């Protein structure tokens, strides 16, 4: 099975990587103390690892090429085919959803406080992912500054509470509304921009919001942030930390269900179809009489609303916020959730959020290597499943048969 050619190829890869990693991995200089450390053992490790991994790498590609579909390993395909089959058939779809629902409901009762806590975080990101999915997945507008709306939501709750004592339940819709307003504010000037120009302007917008929060002390308390944000109340009941955590968990489950419901309805509505049409072809879309400006603005506004509400829950959960939580990395992570999960697909986004948010937590066992592994996972996932874990189901409805390529 392993031919001489293969070994030669792997040997070359191995030598290449040994050369590549030589200065960084082998030599460690400390210019403060003027010492050089030579770590030849690392070179050996890189060589051996490179040799073995290059076999796997080529093998994976062969498999990917052979089947014509993207797949990583037999186990993985198995899973996916199940998912697809389940989704196609309502009879099987419902029980699976019910079972999953039971699991989610029983979750905080079975698992520890920590597990519940990180699951709540993951649920917040599910909500953010679904919101961004409207903008990126459905309307096809690449938004790298989504975190701005998240920040707007979190800060409006924190500030409204600080100055006017407004509670969680009032702040939730209010912050959603405020974020939507910001969404329109951002959307308006960038209507003309396309693709990556839009991406960079939204990135700039995200940074502008963060920098203003950081610099304008009188307004936002600057980089030291706002502490003692109350957790959500439940008819004035006194709750322990455990009670609060579990309560917040169920609250998030309800909010996510609500989000799924709304996004699902939106997808199949008139405006949802307009978004998808806009994503596919802007000019044809306008020719068909769709109001481009209004459609885009609704996408921004609706996407922002969820971010705003997510922000409120976030502020209530951590009880402390500062601008450092709203960096561009956060936007990137949310974008990764959408793309990795599968653009435009609700189940995809949910699984994307679960993986990307829970993975770093479970990777804690690897301590300092966790972000390294996280990076590799992103690259490998994209290479072997470029459409995301669970690609958009909508493709099924496409006009099949006499497909001609438009030029």
């Amino acid at each position: 099975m392993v031919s001489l050619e293969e070994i030669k190829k792997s040997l070359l890869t191995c030598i290449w990587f040994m050369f590549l990693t030589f200065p960084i991995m082998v030599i460690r200089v400390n210019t403060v103390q003027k010492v050089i450390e030579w770590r030849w053992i690392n070179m050996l490790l890189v060589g051996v690892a490179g040799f073995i991994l290059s076999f796997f790498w080529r093998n994976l590609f062969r498999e990917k090429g052979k089947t014509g579909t993207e797949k990583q390993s037999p186990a993985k395909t198995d899973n996916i085919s199940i998912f697809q089959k389940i989704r196609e058939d309502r009879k099987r779809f419902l029980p699976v959803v019910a079972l999953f629902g039971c699991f989610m409901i029983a979750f905080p009762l079975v698992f520890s406080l920590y597990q519940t806590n990180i699951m709540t975080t993951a649920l917040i990101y599910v909500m953010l992912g679904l919101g961004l999915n409207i903008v990126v997945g459905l309307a096809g507008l690449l938004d790298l500054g989504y975190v701005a709306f998240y920040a707007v939501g979190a800060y409006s709750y924190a500030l409204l509470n600080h100055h006017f004592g407004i509670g969680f339940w009032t702040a939730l819709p209010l912050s959603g509304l405020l974020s939507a307003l910001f969404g329109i504010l951002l959307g308006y000037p960038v209507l003309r921009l396309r693709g990556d120009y839009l991406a960079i302007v939204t990135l700039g917008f995200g940074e502008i919001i963060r920098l203003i929060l950081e610099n304008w002390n009188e307004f936002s308390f600057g980089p030291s942030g706002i502490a003692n944000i109350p957790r959500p109340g439940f008819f004035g009941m006194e709750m322990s930390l455990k009670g609060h955590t579990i309560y917040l968990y169920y609250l998030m489950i309800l909010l996510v269900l609500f989000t799924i419901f709304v996004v699902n309805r939106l997808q199949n509505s008139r405006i949802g179809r307009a978004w998808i049409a806009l994503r596919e072809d802007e000019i044809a879309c306008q020719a068909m009489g769709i109001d481009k400006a209004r459609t885009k603005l609704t996408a921004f506004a609706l996407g922002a609303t969820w971010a705003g509400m997510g922000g409120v829950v976030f502020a209530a959960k951590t009880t402390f916020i500062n601008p450092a939580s709203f960096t561009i990395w956060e936007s990137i992570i949310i974008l990764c959730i959408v793309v990795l999960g599968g653009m435009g697909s609700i189940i995809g986004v949910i699984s994307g959020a679960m993986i990307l948010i829970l993975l770093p937590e479970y990777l804690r066992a690897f301590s300092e290597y966790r972000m390294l592994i996280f990076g590799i996972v992103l690259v490998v996932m994209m290479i072997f499943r470029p459409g995301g874990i669970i690609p958009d189901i909508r493709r099924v409805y496409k006009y099949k048969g006499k497909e001609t390529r438009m030029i």
Partner: protein
Amino acid sequence: MKNESKRLMIAVIVGMLLCLFVSGPGLAADTIKLGVAGAHSGDLASYGIPSIRAAKLVVDEINAKGGVLGKQVEVLTEDDVCKPEVATNTATKLISKKVDVVLGHICSGATKAAMGIYKDSKIVVMSPSATNPDLTQSGDYPNFYRTIASDDAQAKLDVDFALDVLKLKKIAVIHDKGDYGKGFAEFAKKFLEESGKAEVVLFEGVTPGAVDYSAVVQKIKQNDAEAVIFGGYHPEASKIVTQMRKKRMKTIFISDDGVKDDTFIKVAGKYAEGVYASGPKDTSKNPLNIKAVKAHKDKYGEAHGAFYENAYTATIALLNAIEKAGSTDYDAISKALKTEWVETPIGKIRFDDRGDAIGAGFSVYQVQDGKYVELK
């Protein structure tokens, strides 16, 4: 077909259970659990890693001597990358693992976010590096202690030095827009204005990590500032100082603990000469300090990083309090921390009612011949 969906469910459940076991509580042996939380990865890791090392070194030594109250001490480290949202997860994780006391967190923001959780669970937390004044002064965090002076205490010292010793009249206050730097700068500005002896000619933030600060440096020159009081860390400070000196400006540079780091001198080289920085009192003659520094050098083969001594002190103080209290009970530990003096690398200390260390003083240093020299 039914089979397949069942298999999926089983897979999901087994997966989740596995996760639970992996991250669930460790073996419930009878040990005292010391949680160490802070930035152990990411761009601020260099401020968090020394605290893990300090905790491990102290614990190893104490364990070798038979532990605390006859029990071995176990170190549980958790990373919060200095982000508030991660810090709450870190805190709940440590609580799920039933820690007795916590050393951490490193950044003030992350500490504030995590404190809410520790407070409800009645766990004593001691930070080696969180300097935000609110942590002790607001009274919101009765279970918080620290082995480092707060921003306002440092700012007061620097301002007094600038006004009384150097007799400066025109001062520019610059900060790095960060939690620590800006907090420090705000206090410095406030104290300067209250004193009425000097004028704040410029109050500005620079963007950390920017490639060059020449515009700000020009502005300092333009405003005829005699001195700069800088709040922030050494990477920015060395860039500003270097650029000022290259522009032939002799403006005095006064800064904080974040700059009182040997790396600053190494990076800024000859331009570092004459720079003032406040920092904990020189305790390098203290035998415990010598021992702590040597232990690090022996084990890790390199000089210790930032906040190492503070973390070393905090670990000793926490474990000593447990020993003196005779149990890991919250009230007993709090009482012991506030009443029992303990010998540490930064001197003999105990804690006041708000949680600040008494006995750990601050003084101003100046770079002379490539070394920080304490000014009496």
